């Protein structure tokens, strides 16, 4: 039991969840986007704790660097309507939504807390190499399909957003 690692885990989890709560509680959509960056960074910290450094770097690059900036740009491009802080950001059924989310959390937590038997193996020493070999070995076809999907989606996004 390493107290240092445990406290790091608690801190990173609190950062992630506070960021997520900020996303759903913020008064303006722009503030939601800024809280979203905090939450994404916290998830990257969780990846580091789980010994997945490649995913942590990808999380920072793609989510914090690209998706969050994209979202903030979109918020600024569409700000005329709901930009004022006075307008309520929640719809009329937010109470029911909160109940559903709370029940979801309870069910997921109850199923999560059980006697898992962790494997005694450790990850490969060069986990990134093993990941690359997995991509170009057993997962070659899904890998190529994902790249085609990404290409099609980006071309589609350009066509949709064009005047």
């Amino acid at each position, binding site marked *: 039991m390493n*107290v240092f690692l445990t406290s790091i885990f608690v801190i990173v*989890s609190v950062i*992630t*969840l506070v960021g*997520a709560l900020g*996303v*759903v509680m913020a008064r303006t*959509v722009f503030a*939601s986007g800024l809280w*979203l960056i905090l*939450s994404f960074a916290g*998830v990257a910290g*969780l990846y580091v*704790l*789980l010994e*997945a450094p*490649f*995913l942590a770097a*990808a999380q920072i690059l*793609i*989510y914090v660097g*690209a*998706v969050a900036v*994209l*979202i903030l740009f*979109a918020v600024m*491009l*569409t700000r005329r*309507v*709901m930009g004022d802080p006075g307008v309520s*950001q*929640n719809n009329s059924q937010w109470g*029911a*939504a*909160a109940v*559903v*989310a709370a029940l*979801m*959390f309870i069910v*997921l*937590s109850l199923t*999560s*807390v059980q006697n*898992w038997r*962790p*494997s005694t193996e450790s990850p*490969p020493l060069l*986990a990134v190499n093993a*990941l690359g*070999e*997995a*991509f170009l070995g057993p*997962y070659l076809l899904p890998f190529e399909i994902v790249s085609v*999907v*990404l290409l099609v*989606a*980006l071309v589609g*996004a350009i066509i*949709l*957003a064009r005047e």
Partner: protein
Amino acid sequence: MVESVPLGAYLVVAAALFAIGLYGALARRHAIAILMGVELMLNAVNVNLVAFWRYLSPANMSGQVFATFIIALAAAEAAIGLALFIAIYRSRDTVSVEEVNLMKW
């Protein structure tokens, strides 16, 4: 690493993240805020995948492979979604999902 934090702790954090994202997707009026909730849910799923990979089969990279696929597809989804919202904003001058009810029966 594995001894300091039990697997259940990661799963509970991911469950909380998922529930918060679900609330955001259900309760917000702004279309982009709904997209943010969806992104939170995808991140929660990714945390689950990586935690299961690390604790249950660290020698097999499948968990990280699927997490990477989800990151790529989430990026595609965000790009398409935001392009749609910008197109809707241009033609209807609103991004509130309550006012875009063209296809509501």
